[in-house]
């Protein structure tokens, strides 16, 4: 209708002497990732989050140390004692545990490092200038994602290292080989959980025009999903409403299975279950028993003792896949939205 189809006929590189001087361009995202990473590491928010996370991990550890000592007498020789460092809080307030704090803080980290990734560039007026450099548009979003993940990986590794070091030095608990592997697996799953939130923050920064608004939405979602008093509680109520537990024992068990399915809609549930299975070799299943015979079976298994890391990984594999899919979904949405956006707001 308007114009004949455009037919670009790029000449073979040899035919254009002037162009020969130009080398093939390498990928652009490492440059962006390097700059963003150094920005993150120098930024105030990095230190604030570092301190918060460090304190959140160390305080329960400090108060929990006594309990671990007393525990150590009972279960001396247990291969999982080292991992108890991350799961034992002061007596009485059992939820004050390192793994619970990480589970709560990880989404915060993800959102905090991404909520202003794109709209911040827009606000500063750097976006048109940046995109007029010889990089692909997706280099920007990829680079920012990688940089955010790297910064968070650093913070998490440091915090875990401090906790582990505290345990080794003060409590004299040396980790066994499998303990270390379990810790690494837990670290990777935590990173995946953070990546999901990072991708979510990135999506917000693309879609929401103002950084302050996207921060509010991001932290609001975090409160709802990750804090036990909001989303999980509501979802719990909803699940009890949808799948009422009544009647005899077997019906109650069946209802519990349905309720768990609903609760697993939240990524925080997925992560909590995965985290528990990885840190505690005594966990042989993440699902509630759905029949009476299963319940009895489970009871026997628990008394049976610990499972190997491979078995634990098998248990949480569906959780990992679900988290991976959520991350991919958030990132893909952010990606598509950004590619379709006009450079001018």
């Amino acid at each position, binding site marked *: 209708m*308007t*114009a004949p189809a*455009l*037919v670009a*006929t*790029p000449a073979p590189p040899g035919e254009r002497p002037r162009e020969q001087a130009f080398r093939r361009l390498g990928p652009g995202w490492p440059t962006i990732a*390097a700059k963003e990473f150094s920005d993150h590491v120098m930024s105030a928010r990095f230190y604030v989050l570092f301190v918060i996370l460090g304190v959140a991990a160390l305080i329960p550890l400090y108060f929990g140390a006594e309990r671990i000592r007393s525990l150590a007498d009972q279960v001396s020789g247990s291969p999982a004692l080292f991992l108890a460092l991350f799961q034992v809080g002061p007596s009485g307030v059992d939820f004050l545990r390192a793994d619970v704090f990480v589970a709560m803080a990880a989404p915060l980290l993800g959102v905090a490092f991404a909520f202003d990734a794109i709209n911040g560039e827009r606000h500063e007026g750097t976006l*048109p*200038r940046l995109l007029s450099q010889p*990089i692909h548009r997706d280099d920007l979003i990829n680079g920012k994602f990688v940089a955010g993940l790297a910064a968070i990986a650093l913070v998490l590794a440091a915090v875990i290292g401090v906790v582990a070091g505290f345990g080794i030095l003060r409590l004299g608990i040396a980790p066994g080989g499998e303990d270390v592997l379990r810790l690494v697996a837990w670290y990777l799953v935590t990173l995946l959980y953070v990546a999901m939130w990072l991708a979510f923050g990135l999506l917000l920064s693309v879609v929401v025009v103002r950084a302050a608004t996207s921060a509010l939405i991001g932290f609001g979602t975090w409160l709802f999903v990750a804090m036990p008093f909001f989303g999980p509680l509501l979802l719990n109520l909803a699940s009890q409403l949808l799948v009422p537990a009544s009647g005899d024992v077997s019906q109650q068990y069946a209802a519990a299975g349905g309720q768990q399915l609903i609760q697993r809609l939240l990524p925080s549930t997925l992560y909590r279950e995965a985290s528990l299975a990885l840190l505690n070799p005594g966990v042989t299943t993440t699902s509630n028993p759905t029949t009476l015979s299963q319940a009895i079976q489970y009871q026997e298994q628990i008394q049976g003792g610990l499972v190997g890391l491979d078995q634990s990984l098998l248990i949480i594999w569906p959780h990992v896949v679900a988290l991976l899919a959520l991350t991919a979904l958030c990132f893909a949405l952010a990606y598509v939205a950004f590619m379709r956006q006009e450079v001018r707001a």
Partner: protein
Amino acid sequence: MSEQPSIRRRRPGDPPRLGATRRVGRPSTGQMQPVATPRKQERGRPVPPPPSAEGGALPISTRGLTKRYGDLVAVDGLDLDVVPGEIFGLLGQNGAGKTTTILMLLGLTEPSGGWARVAGFDPTRQPLEVKRRVGYLPDAVGFYGAMSGRANLRYTARLNRLERVASEARIEEVLEQVGMANRADDRVDTYSRGMLQRLGIADALLKDPAVLILDEPTTAIDPIGVVEILELLRGLARKRGLAILLSSHLLTQVQSVCDRVGIFAAGRLIGVGTVPELALRFGEPVDLIEVGAEGEADPSGAISAMPGFRSIVAGERPGDPFVVRVDRGSGATLRAAVLAAAAAGTIPLTSVREVVPSLDDIYRRALEERGLAAHGRVAA
């Protein structure tokens, strides 16, 4: 790696590129004719196919370039050629389609129709090849406030994959060129708007581009700085064959620095040419003569009897020169007649000179001719 800096630019001694002849507007028919073609007809106009990549080495060349946002036509069938060593000024009001055009040239927005070639490449299909050869200063340019000006430029150098050692020297060079060397190590958030704009020009020059596209390059720079920057741009175009496309609404600046000017209104280029050409086309068919007379003296009576006389307007304040309009080509005769009258004692003459119509007038008349009110301006 001991590779030489990778970007080689055309030097004056180089053999001329194919197609590097100066073309004004659309070569064939009447871009210059003030015939207002109905838009519908225009839209169906066949667009000539783009040149093959080897032949089309014009820095900027577009045919029928069109951008629609739903029903709104932001850019409508733009035909534009910019040759090496030329400074082309794009004039137009806000929303006339200047920035949209520039974004299409950079491959940052996809055209709805027609084609563009920048440095021989299609911005839509080979945006990276275009972007590594084009320096771009966006309207309201921004930098990372927490970094120094130099660090910002260093980041640009990295994004252009310039070699580290060579780029440090290059950064220093462009900082000197825009007069920012002494503030380069301060944080950018301490810079004024004008300094940001200077840094933006340095940023655009950093990659040693073959084409420079500047969106409102001098709006926030102080008058003396503007002269420096315009000198710099003119030097780059003359000495190094850089093609520069700049958009501006500061008409006097455009007039002083641009070789050719395109008047942009409602997405269409309504006139292209040098300022005198445009004056000839859009201006009244008159010559303008300024006549200064002593004190309260009024030379109107004497002048109105002279050959070719059309009108005379007194200056705004007493003592200001009168502006006389005469038939085109009668300017010299009138001046001679005024001087003769002064010699005869009829007019107490203090000055007489011919004035060139300002781009301001041309612009306004061009818009009026197309039935487009130049809003925001007082029609004097």
